[in-house]
């Protein structure tokens, strides 16, 4: 199939882009790498009147460490992160996630801001960045606001973006030297979206853990204080203390009534726990 006819604009600066989005009153779609929007346009799952191509906006390509955190512009590609063209404050966690997103052709074009905006439950960044405790800044003509990733992703393909608003940057806090990272996913085949994602950042020194169960039918389950998954206490023996039943209970609470599906999610999370402990 082919997309419906639409107008196309490629603004030169962020303010022009924001003006176009404001004027379109919600009938516009933003395109950056086009790795999700392209197929969706062709399948006519989206039928915008206007496509605003932001790939020319230099402001959104910046990547820098600012005040101890990494600030990645929305147009930074997965391959930029995979290849280390951007700085890393996560001690390899983000490059590791980036390197396993879909396949290389997608990573060359796909952007971190696009992936977040699209909010596909099965995509990697919404889960990985929630586990890392990242925040996102959104900009419109009215100004800027900032929120945690887990607040930004509202549901399947649903984000907190208002009409006229754009993801400007992702702010990733530095990973403590005492913090362990684990990330696992299961895909039917190479390059396919995951059907289960487990991510965790465990810092026994701080007795803190963030755990994410992703690729469920809706927004990922983000547990910012995950002591309940480790028998009530985060310590160096977190691998032994991992409580599969507590994880299963979270999935039941999220409305997943299929036991096999829950078992796959818990097993993938367990893989991530083992990776973090290794």
């Amino acid at each position, binding site marked *: 199939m082919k997309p419906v006819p639409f107008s196309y604009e490629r603004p030169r600066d962020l303010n022009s882009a924001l003006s176009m989005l404001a004027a379109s009153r919600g009938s516009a779609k933003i395109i950056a790498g086009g790795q999700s929007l392209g197929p969706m346009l062709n*399948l006519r799952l989206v039928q915008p009147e206007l496509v605003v191509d932001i790939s020319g906006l230099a402001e959104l390509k910046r990547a820098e460490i600012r005040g101890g955190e990494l600030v990645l512009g929305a147009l930074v590609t997965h391959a930029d992160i995979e290849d280390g063209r951007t700085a890393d404050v996560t001690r390899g966690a983000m490059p590791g996630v980036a390197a396993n997103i879909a396949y290389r052709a997608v990573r060359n074009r796909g952007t971190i801001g696009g992936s977040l905006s699209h909010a596909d439950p099965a995509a990697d960044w919404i889960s990985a960045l929630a586990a890392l405790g990242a925040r996102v800044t959104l900009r419109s003509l009215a100004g800027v606001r900032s929120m945690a990733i887990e607040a930004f992703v509202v549901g399947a393909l649903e984000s907190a973006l208002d009409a006229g608003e754009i993801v400007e940057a992702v702010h990733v806090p530095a990973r403590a030297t005492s913090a362990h990272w684990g990330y696992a996913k*299961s895909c*039917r*085949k190479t*390059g396919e979206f995951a059907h289960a994602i487990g991510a965790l950042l465990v810092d026994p020194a701080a007795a803190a853990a963030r755990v994410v169960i992703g690729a469920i039918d809706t927004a990922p389950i983000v547990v910012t204080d995950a002591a309940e998954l480790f028998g009530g206490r985060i310590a160096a023996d977190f691998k032994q203390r991992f409580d599969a039943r507590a994880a299963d209970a979270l999935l039941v609470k999220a409305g997943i009534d*299929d036991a*096999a599906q829950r078992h*796959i999610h818990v*097993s993938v999370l367990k893989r991530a726990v083992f990776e973090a402990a290794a």
Partner: protein
Amino acid sequence: MTQGYKPVRDSGTFSYAAHAAVVAVDPEVGEVEILDYVIVEDGGVLVNPMVVDGQIYGGLAQGIGTALYEEMPFDNSGQPLATTLADYLLPGATEVPAARLDHMETPSPYTQFGVKGIGEGGAIAPPAAIANAVNDALRPLGVELMQSPITPHRVVAAVLAARTSGRSAA
């Protein structure tokens, strides 16, 4: 001038094949990985061995799709649920192993040069070979899968069912 070819006996020729698969199955996540795959095919006299090999490899890829990926489900009102290649999974290059291939050449007594048809053989055996290998791997758990494609969900559901029935029997 147009010329045709009709063999002395036109009831068809039959090639023979044996497929053997070695797989790894993760019973917790349901992933299946093909570790080794061997095909021996008897296609009679091979007129163009390169084309024969290509046909068998292609058939294997298609058969792996049947075994592990391809499915056309419908919902209760008859609506097809796999209408694009995003939903209808096909094996890609990374899902098809470098199979080992060997040939026997038993000439057909009924055809010119002793050739036999080998066009479809490659695609027919893989679902059986792979399912048998998966079932062999899961045998200690008391699991037998009888439906293709063998998806992670079907594997895990069968493993959980076996565990539950094992507990109730005990």
